[in-house]
């Protein structure tokens, strides 16, 4: 499974709106698109499986889809109102299913030059754990979870880069706790610090968690899209999951 790379240097360039605005020959945009696809392939796979396709077919299908997506001409021709990446990806896949898949199945393309390596075992293992939801709902839920995972991974990496990986693990539960439940005294003991410092650290971590979440969402939006709206959508999907 390709690692979700969310270090900030890559991050700056994987903004969906930048990709859309890029010219055909822009290799940076192509790489950025590839990174985005690597991060969000699983929700799409889950959708395909939920649609009823057996594992092997689903894997072929998903890989072919990404391969053709990454051929720049295809991206250009898909239509001007591309919108946010989340909806774009699903719509593109649905169209792909209708138009392209049958052609390709018939032509039996050999020599899989996949730009997006999918770990088939991992995909199925994860899929087995999915709750029973309709295909679109599965996709939405999985998308939202991917966002969460990326945000948390990014948060963890930040802590790790300043040598505080242990602190992160001690503090991460605070992200979901109520004010009255956090024992700063316990945290202080675990991290070898004091209560006052822990208050500051927890506050910062929460604030940073929110802003990272926001950043990751913003990276999937096209120009003119509202971050708040998308945030609320994702939060509501997770809340009802």
């Amino acid at each position: 499974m390709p690692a979700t790379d969310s270090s900030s240097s890559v991050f700056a360039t994987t903004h969906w709106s930048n990709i859309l605005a890029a010219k055909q020959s822009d290799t940076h945009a192509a790489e950025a698109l590839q990174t985005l696809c690597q991060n969000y392939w699983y929700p799409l796979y889950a959708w395909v499986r939920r649609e009823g396709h057996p594992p092997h077919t689903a894997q072929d299908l998903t890989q072919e889809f990404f391969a053709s997506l990454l051929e720049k001409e295809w991206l250009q021709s898909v239509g001007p109102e591309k919108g946010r990446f989340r909806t774009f990806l699903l719509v593109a896949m649905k169209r792909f299913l209708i138009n392209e898949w049958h052609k390709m199945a018939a032509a039996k393309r050999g020599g899989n030059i996949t730009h997006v390596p999918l770990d088939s075992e991992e995909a199925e293992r994860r899929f087995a754990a999915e709750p029973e939801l309709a295909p679109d709902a599965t996709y939405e839920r999985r998308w939202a979870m991917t966002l969460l995972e990326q945000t948390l991974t990014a948060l963890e990496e930040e802590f790790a880069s300043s040598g505080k990986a242990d602190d992160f693990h001690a503090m991460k539960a605070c992200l979901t706790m109520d004010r009255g439940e956090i024992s700063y005294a316990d945290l202080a003991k675990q991290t070898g610090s004091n209560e006052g410092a822990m208050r500051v650290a927890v506050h910062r971590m929460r604030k940073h968690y929110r802003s990272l979440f926001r950043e990751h969402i913003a990276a999937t939006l096209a120009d003119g899209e509202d971050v708040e709206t998308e945030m609320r959508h994702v939060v509501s999907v997770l809340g009802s999951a």
Partner: protein
Amino acid sequence: MNTESTTTCPKCGKSLLEDTPQGLCPACLAAAINFDTETVGAPGVHAASTMSPEELAPHFPQLEIIEYLGRGGMGVVYKARQKSLNRLVALKLLAPERADDAKFAERFEKEAHALAALNNPDIVTIYDFGQAAGFYFLLMEYIDGVNLRQAMQAGRFTPEQALAIVPPVCEALQYAHEQGIVHRDIKPENLLMDKDGHVKIADFGIAKMIDAEAPAAGEVELSQPFGTPTYSAPEQTEDPAHADHRVDIYSLGVVLYELLTGEVPQQLPEPPSSRVQVDVRLDEIVLRALETKPEMRFATAGEFRTQLSEVTVSHSKPATLKSSTCYVSSPDHLANFIGRFIYVYTGKGKLQLDSNQLTFYQSNSIKTVIPLDAIRDLSTGMYPTSAAPFGLMFISITWEESGVTRQHLFTPNQGPFKTVWQTNEFVADWFTAIQDAVRQPFGLMPPTTPADELNVPQGKRYPWLFLIFGSLLTPSLIFLFEDGAKTFIAAEITLIVLTALLLLISRGKASASGKRSH
């Protein structure tokens, strides 16, 4: 947050699947993205006036502008680095609309000089001031931390912590007052707490800098939400010409009240001890600082501090009234198969009762805190007899937390080798203790619901089933080893008698502890 054995989030009750991000509940993580904005800016600081670090850089060649920190009521703050000295500083830009007023400029300079003369470890130091980019700016000490407002939002302060923060602020105010400078804008947003937990006063004297004339337009309230001077003393609004250093004592009193109770005092402030467990002497001190007439307050900040230090010495934590291991369950769990027939508990931990709250420690970081005044129902009941045939009691506690109603079932426990009846007695004892603790401060008991009305499904009881199963199944094992009808009949009779006896006793015990749940 959860071990493999439980598959629901203890906080929101949603089921957790295998791939939870970092082991945390996704629904709760989503809820943590609350859409509250950070400290609210006051009207008058327009969004358009916020410049980016890049835009500012050419105006401050001696600084490396690192990032935008935030916006207060007075202006915008940036983190920067003084290149010559290689130290971090805070750059504060003020009052764009005053830039051309000569009289204002003179006052600004005079005040800035006075501030620069303030040299105290608990007051943020001013390094430089001037005019650039159409703004007046202040270069100050950079504090790596949060302000008290943010710290309060991160979690409630205990009285000990509050009493650790306020006295040094009093001392710093005393020092400043002796230098003839009154802060006039003491509030949590202006008290900065660094990574070591030290508090420093910031924005000192800035309020006095800005309002050139008597604040007819309510200018002293520039840093407050328009129309609600929560932290300013009455004379600041009513008689500003005669307002003196005692306004700071009032404001600090409000801050202390808020730290202790979590809320700001009303028109007629209720004593803090009526809301939280604090020393009664603290009431006197806080209420005195909040006196409407300045002459009724402490004459100096130093006096305020001395009074506080006397309270600090004798203050102690609320004593633990009762503590034991405890099993926990929930109505939802008892409604599903495992809860009804196999194992009634969802977890185990330690239950602790003190005069403020009931705390259940389930593991290192999972802690359920039930403030006694949040309890809405306190009752006892029996687990479904299908899972606990001899009648096992629980204490049902229903309470409110952040607007949500929660219910837990607790069975305190003395250890593995106790019978059901001993445990029930222990549970009943705990129940009385909790009732007493809740009744203490308020004189009121929370409502008690009869067992069949609690949301706990009660299994149907077919006691004679036990007779049949027990008495048929077990003795037939004898046939594996021995042939003999007589032996069988004897065993049968003994078994029936024994089972009947046991049932009778358990019914008797159940009625003795006051609850029957057929």
